[in-house]
């Protein structure tokens, strides 16, 4: 954490730390939600966390964010055990864009983004201990394209604007690792593409739980596929998302194929596999 600069946007080539998990197990009563999950999210790369509903994606993200203590296993950021970090230090290391973060409190966009400075301020708050705060908030507002909407009340924002404000709040934390829990839910296609492009351009170590395999194929470098709380596939998109894995986990006949116009893979599906759930 000694390399923390004055710039939120560090680019993909910085010495960004790897996020890794090993043997992460979470039980809820007698149900095993996560069963000895291990993963590596390489520094500066975007890792997609995939899997059907109820496969444990949100729980895993909460463990990776240090918000939930696993029954077994550990999470490391650049070699440091997340549990050894005090709360505020942890919040400067890992930030989470939640799935359904709604509010009835009428904050402005700038106030929401400024919340992200909390872990940088003194324990009793106050801007005096955070001299860079205002500049970082301004920079972040520009990065997420909300500079002109900074004074708008939360209640007047569209879904896409709200999601960008949430991203702005987490960026104001100046984290090394960014976690996103289905950030494109409830966004239209244009908003989904713009949002994920924005996240990619940040060049942070990112782990995003995604529902949409096509978006994962387009925006992620690597993927981790969860099913029933276990890792079923892990690796670069093209290698991990095999036809057999997609059939087993999602119950579909599908495969990756070269994009007709772009130098990347995209998802081609035929339909649900025969005799699938």
């Amino acid at each position, binding site marked *: 954490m000694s390399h923390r600069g004055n710039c939120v946007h560090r680019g993909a080539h910085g010495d960004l730390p790897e996020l890794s998990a090993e043997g992460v197990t979470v039980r809820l009563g007698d149900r095993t939600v996560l069963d000895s999950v291990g993963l590596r999210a390489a520094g500066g790369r975007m890792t997609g966390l995939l899997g059907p509903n109820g496969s444990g994606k949100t729980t895993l993200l*909460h463990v990776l*964010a240090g*918000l939930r203590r696993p029954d077994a296993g550990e999470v490391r950021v650049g070699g440091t055990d997340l549990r050894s970090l005090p*709360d*505020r*230090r*942890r*919040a*400067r290391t*890992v*930030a*989470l864009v*939640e799935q359904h*973060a*709604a*509010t*009835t*409190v*009428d*904050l*402005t966009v700038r*106030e*929401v983004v400024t*919340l*992200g400075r*909390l*872990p940088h*301020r003194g324990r*009793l*708050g*106050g801007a005096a201990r955070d001299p860079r705060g205002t500049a970082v908030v301004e920079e972040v507002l520009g990065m997420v394209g909300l500079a002109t909407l900074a*004074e708008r*009340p939360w*209640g007047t924002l569209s879904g896409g604007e709200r999601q960008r404000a*949430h991203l702005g709040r*987490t960026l104001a*934390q100046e984290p090394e690792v960014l976690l996103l829990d289905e950030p494109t839910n409830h966004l239209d296609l244009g908003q989904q593409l713009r949002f994920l492009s924005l996240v990619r351009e940040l060049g942070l170590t990112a782990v995003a739980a995604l529902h949409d395999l096509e978006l994962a194929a387009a925006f992620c470098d690597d993927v981790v596929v969860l099913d029933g709380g276990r890792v079923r596939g892990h690796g670069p998109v093209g290698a991990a998302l095999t036809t057999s894995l997609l059939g087993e986990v999602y119950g579909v006949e599908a495969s990756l194929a070269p994009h007709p116009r772009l130098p990347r893979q995209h998802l081609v599906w035929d339909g649900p596999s025969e005799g699938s759930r």
Partner: protein
Amino acid sequence: MSPQGARSRTGRGLLVLGALAVLLGSCAVALGVGSVDVPVTRVLAVLARRAGAGDFDVTLLEDQLVWQLRLPRILGAVAVGAVLASCGAVLQSLTRNDLADPFLLGVSSGAGVGAVSVIVLGMGVGGLAAGAVLPAAAFAGALAALAAVLLVASAGGGALRPHRTVLAGVAVAHLCGAYTSVVVIMHGQGDAARRVLAWTLGSLAGLRWGSALVLVGAAVVALVWFLAYAERLDAFAFGETSARSLGVPVSATRWVLMVGTALVTATTVAYAGAIGFVGLVVPHLVRPLVGSRHRALLPASAVAGAVLLVWADTAARSLVDGQEVPIGALTALIGVPVLVWLMARRTVA
């Protein structure tokens, strides 16, 4: 004033000055109003003489009315209003519930048990003067109810989840209410029921200098304490997970603030009864003016709550000759229309 205007530096400064001016003005006027009116110039003369600013010619009656009776009562109103309104703001944010009020954790109903035990059953405490028994019993009852609510709410976890805490508060309040009604119905003699009801609706009539200073002390401690948590409270806007991801120790913050608000609320209830609606409504009134950040919301709520109670108490002691109108009824009379307006506005939005 628009929220944007109020959030700018000058706007905020003006708002603070204006609010304090309204508060001081309200107190000055209230000192003169009552069963016997004292002109403002005479009020100031009494205050100046007492402050040692000169030998002003005031009558004994004027000094007695303004300095001995009304000033402690008004200071008490300021303190109780400030405590209830700021506690309401804290708890509404902490539980993310617009209907949270300072009595959320069963404090008022518990105090009712203590009060009814003294008023109806005549329970006493050896060594305490008669006037001190009622506040002491009310405070003890409030603490017992708080302990019960915390015990139920934190069973099997200890995180004081808002949903469980609200339910536990409701449950304990009903239990206390059952005791209170049984005691009043089975054992109440003469005007016991009327006296219990009067206590329940609250009154600042019993305040003298000693109790007023306790209340002012509690208000100062509470405000400083809550303000230290202002930014952590801001982080609760998007819920518990988001607060924790911002590095806020959610469970510890909840414990400290829930117990803290309950203790200062219990102090006000011991001396003034359970004055309703101030804590519920004032934060809602203040938010459109100063925004939702607690650094502004908490002091603004405190000042607005203080002004509301000064006027409600002035009305309580001067509307009807020779009789006190219950102050809780007056705050409800103001509070209910405001709440209805607020709900209508929210539905439209």
